[in-house]
């Protein structure tokens, strides 16, 4: 059914792409204008201290040396020390990662459940007033800037109505002993609702439209008309066939969506003070913390590329028409 080695080859190729991206990012940060240590000004900062820092972060070495060191260390999972936090970058990323993963998955699941159902429903209501009314609304939700929706949601649901908390992953004073205890705490999910809903509002458009067009396709086929005439529960038949048809594109879109939403979360995480990878990146870039920015960026990239890879595999497993060889 599929060629094992072609998958291995594909995987190696994925690593190659990651390496290229890491290289691009490394040089972008190294060639940026301004001294990389400017973030430190404002403290009592002497010349000797400056030189010391330059040495500690390896900035006195040649660019090529720095690059080789960077690649070797990255392979070892060592992303260096954050300039501002003075902590290993990898620890900070690992702390932020679960928050981002949960936010992304949670909102995608909401979006896809809603999108699939609503898409099927709208296809069913084809050429009715409801459809004519809904499609522009769906398109509009995809057109609104997420942070703007977030601002309005925050102002309305949190500040005005006081239904949801306004940010962070917990109320003041709550201690999560471990990541697991955090991810299993109801409190955490209560804080997750508002940001995920805003994100989901944006994300639901794609599965909705995909599902709808698949439904429409199925509904035009003869056997549906036939079964309708036979008086069978045509709704069930359509759903069955449409779901089968839609499974592949929706699943692929979901997988790609994970990688994509991860990068896009940057904005929502900022509005809702959500301590995820995106906010880490924004903080790192705006305070010129290159090791941290580099690490966060490479992680975001790795997730994106991995998800692209998984989407390819999904295609391979779910679509009988495509064999891996012909696609390549």
């Amino acid at each position, binding site marked *: 059914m599929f060629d094992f080695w072609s998958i291995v080859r594909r995987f190696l*190729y994925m690593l190659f*792409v*990651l390496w*290229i*991206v890491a290289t*691009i*990012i490394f040089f*972008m*940060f190294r*060639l*940026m*204008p301004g001294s990389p240590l400017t973030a430190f000004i404002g403290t009592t900062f002497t010349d000797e201290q400056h030189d010391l820092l330059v040495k500690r972060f390896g900035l006195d070495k040649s660019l090529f040396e720095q690059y080789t060191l960077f690649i070797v260390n990255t392979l070892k999972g060592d992303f260096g020390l954050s300039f501002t936090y003075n902590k290993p970058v990898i620890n900070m990323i690992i702390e932020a990662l679960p928050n981002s993963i949960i936010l992304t998955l949670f909102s995608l699941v909401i979006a896809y459940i809603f999108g699939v159902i609503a898409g099927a429903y709208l296809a069913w209501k084809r*050429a009715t007033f409801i459809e004519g009314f809904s499609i*522009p609304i769906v*398109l*509009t939700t*995809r*057109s*609104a*800037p*997420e*942070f*703007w929706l977030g*601002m*309005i949601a*925050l*102002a309305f649901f949190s*500040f005005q109505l006081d239904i949801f908390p306004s940010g962070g992953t917990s109320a003041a004073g709550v201690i999560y002993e471990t990541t697991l205890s955090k991810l299993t705490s109801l409190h955490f999910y209560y804080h997750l609702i508002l940001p995920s809903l805003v994100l989901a509002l944006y994300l639901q458009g794609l599965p909705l439209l995909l599902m709808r*067009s698949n439904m*429409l*396709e199925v509904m035009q086929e003869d056997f549906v008309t036939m079964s309708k005439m036979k008086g069978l529960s045509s709704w069930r038949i359509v759903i069955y066939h449409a779901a089968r048809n839609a499974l592949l594109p929706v699943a692929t879109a979901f997988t790609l969506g994970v*990688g*994509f939403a*991860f*990068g*896009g979360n*940057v*904005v929502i995480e*900022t509005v809702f003070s959500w301590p995820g990878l*995106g906010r880490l*990146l*924004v903080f790192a*870039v*705006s305070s*010129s913390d290159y090791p941290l*920015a580099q690490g*966060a*960026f490479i992680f*975001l*990239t790795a997730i*994106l*590329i991995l998800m*692209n890879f998984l989407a390819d595999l999904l295609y391979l497993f779910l679509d009988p028409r495509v064999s891996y060889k012909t696609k390549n």
Partner: protein
Amino acid sequence: MIAEIYKIFKENNYATIGVCIYLFFILVAIFADLIATNDPLRINFSSSGLARNLPPSWEYFLGTTSNGRDIFSQLIYGSRNALAVGLSAALAVAILGTIVGLISGFYGGWIDNLIMRLADIALGLPFLPFVIVLAAFLGPSSWNVVIAIGLLLWPNAGRIIRSQVLTLRERGYIESAKVSGCSNFRIIFLHIAPNILPLSFLYGSIAIGWAILTEASVSFLGFGPSDVISWGYMLQDAYSSQALSLGAYIWFIPPGICIVLMVVAGFFISRGYEEILFPKIKK
């Protein structure tokens, strides 16, 4: 081409609405100098000092910002930035995607291979984070968004166009053109390109919305220029000046609506186009 466009209007309300919205904003942008009542960047003073947070009046239709700037005029001038960013991004994607798709599809071989590898790399870069890094690298400017879109979004268009070219290449009239000694250049641009223009147009129109949304996000995160009025800048200004707490809805709702309208217009048009191009979804 013209017949096709006419068909869209005739049969598709979405596209008509979309084009109308665009026309509206284009007119506003062109006549911004006449419509705007103030210099959008000037700090206005009233008799009691800085004209800050004023409610709507005849002098300031939508009131003023915390800095004493005229919101209405900012909104008007914002359309220029949105159109400039949106249209240049559309051009960048359309041109790059078309050229790449044409070359890759027509020549195949190592060129095709190389281009598709480049496409994989471009698709492997997370979009918004990349724009942020780019803004730090090049300094804050609206063009970062256009550059990033050009650099990262061509593969989508490129790939589809490439596969279209692959099928076109096998058609009889291309074969006959080849036999009759037409140069490759001629074949590509005279015989193949016109057939894929609608696709370029489709991806271009999708890029408009992307560009405007991204520009807004980047401005909001504080990586945009502070001396160029854009809707994203206005939202960022409103947010950091606490328009929410001030209850100054008149300040942060209109720019958002303008962005929505502009982006949705792009969707409408591309949707209308899609229905022509992929008629199986059509009624």
